[in-house]
């Protein structure tokens, strides 16, 4: 079960979809809207997806998880549109014969989802709104994995108080180290892209 939905996520559906008689463990991860972020009082989140590609990328994550861990089933559902505080925006259910594999694979799946699946999150807070993932240093942190956050510069968030985009031109990008420099800085402690949940070799 892999899908996008504009309706509230029904966790029972995922548990049923991932359930399997050969599994002894089922891990359910639920990502929910938190009422605060970086000192801001969050009112709601709004998710936008690239339909088609988002599901495809989620499928790939499920396939990769099954290749890396001995799993029974993987179910991933992501909500789009407004997600109020406390409600689920994403849920992942993974079943396996033994719990360690299910825990690790679920962790991998959510981490990977947040890196590659074309779904965007806009935070609405008291006094403004901001696209999350877009504000670091004026360049996309997601694509510059080696970028060492906070290593040697201030973050300048592109927070728009009015909902317009004028705040985007803050010149923050000028202070951003180039990709090469970023990688060098990262040598001080930020792992390479390959650091993601390496996972065990399949046991057999």
């Amino acid at each position, binding site marked *: 079960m892999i899908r996008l939905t504009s309706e509230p996520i029904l966790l029972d559906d995922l548990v049923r979809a991932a359930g399997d008689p050969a599994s002894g463990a089922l891990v359910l991860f639920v990502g929910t809207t938190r009422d605060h972020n970086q000192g801001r009082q969050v009112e709601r989140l709004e998710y936008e997806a690239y339909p088609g590609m988002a599901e495809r990328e989620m499928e790939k994550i499920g396939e990769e998880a099954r290749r890396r861990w001995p799993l029974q089933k993987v179910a991933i559902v992501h909500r789009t549109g407004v997600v109020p505080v406390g409600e689920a925006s994403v849920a992942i259910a993974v079943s396996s014969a033994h719990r360690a594999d299910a825990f690790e694979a679920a962790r991998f799946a959510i981490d990977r989802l947040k890196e590659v699946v074309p*779904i965007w999150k806009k935070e609405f807070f008291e006094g403004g709104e901001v696209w999350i*993932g877009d504000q670091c240093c004026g360049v996309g942190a997601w694509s510059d994995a080696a970028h060492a*956050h906070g290593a040697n510069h201030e973050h300048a968030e592109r927070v728009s108080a009015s909902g317009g*985009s004028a705040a985007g031109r803050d010149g923050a990008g000028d202070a951003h180290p180039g990709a090469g420099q970023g990688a060098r800085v990262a040598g001080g402690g930020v792992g390479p892209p390959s650091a993601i949940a390496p996972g065990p070799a399949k046991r057999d």
Partner: protein
Amino acid sequence: MKVRVLFFASLRERLGCSEVVRTLEAGATTGSLVERLREEFPDLDGAGRFAIAVNSDYTDGGQALADGDEVALIPPVSGGQDRATGGPEKRPETERR
């Protein structure tokens, strides 16, 4: 050839539109398309990095385009702030200049 170009999230808001259709010369690539879009949409500069997908697959600036292709400019996805532990295996982003 004609291609459809999609803009999402912050890019959509910044450029003020969600998609355009453009006629390109034979031999056009994702890179040449982006160059052209930069001329057409000056706001694309300063928009930060974005990834490119053609027909729903991530790619880079060197992919040849074909008639009917759907090209998406993909700003950083929602995990950006949550300390994603790595990037996409392909690193298709186009860097701003």
